[in-house]
């Protein structure tokens, strides 16, 4: 157990080493979380448009025979 405490103390510099790791972890996780949430939000907003476009494409495809390349 003592060894663990000694590790925690960081030779007396615990007040500097741990905060710098903590800040790094917090900032990077926030960055990832916000980025992923933004992507989810945009995909959610895009869903109705995609479905409408798909529906329109199916209608036109059924009325026409030649294949429609999807850009």
């Amino acid at each position, binding site marked *: 157990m003592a060894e663990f405490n000694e590790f925690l103390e960081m*030779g007396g510099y615990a007040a500097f080493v741990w905060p710098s790791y903590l800040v790094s972890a917090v900032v*990077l996780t926030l960055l*990832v979380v916000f*980025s992923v949430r933004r*992507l989810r939000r945009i995909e959610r907003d*895009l869903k109705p448009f995609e479905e409408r476009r798909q529906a329109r494409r199916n209608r036109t495809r059924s009325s026409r025979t030649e294949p429609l390349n999807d850009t």
Partner: protein
Amino acid sequence: MAIDFHKYANPTRFLRLASAVFPWVTGAAVLLLVTGLYMGLFVAPEDYQQGETVRIMFVHVPAAWMGMSVYTMMAVSAAAGLIWKHPVADLSAKAAAPIGACFTLLALVTGALWGQPMWGTYWVWDARLTSMLILLFLYLGYMALWGSFDDHSKAARAAAILVLVGAINIPVIKFSVDWWNTLHQPASVATLDGPKIHGSILTPLLVMGAAYMMLFLSVFIIRVKAEIMDRRLQIMKISQLQE
């Protein structure tokens, strides 16, 4: 009459490549982070001069590296966007800016935390910290410029001009700040370079550097994908308006 200019803003090739690479990059990032932290915190010996505070270097130096290399990458993609008009280039510069800004901010914070035990104050106008601070301003200026345009393609070109002018100025700023620092160099301050880095410290540093690079790539892919989808969303909203 509405032409289908999704081609204009829908680079599926990039999306396919990105989603293929994404799992590998994220996996590598996690793996490298874990090994880097383990080596940095447990394996690396403490430094004879700085003691345990040298471990801060493992989060400070990679962040500084990334802060600078992301800005360079933005300048290159901005140039590509202006010259070859490739829509993904503009989007990738816009997507990378916040990540670069985060890394620069981390470099500043961890630099200050590292400086305190050595110099007794949190902020010392050390040449590298000052250059990092100026780099952060350049990032903020870039992101603020994006925010103040409503027309996307104009914002892209304006931001590209700014990041290129900024990139041309970075060496001049770096030179003048370094020179300015030596002019006002207080006598006995050990600069951030610290002791000559030997093996046991260097390897965790390089592993952490690679980990930060992979982390950048994975967040970058997420953000670029979001930017591309956002462009498609705007275009769809407007073309819906027109029908």
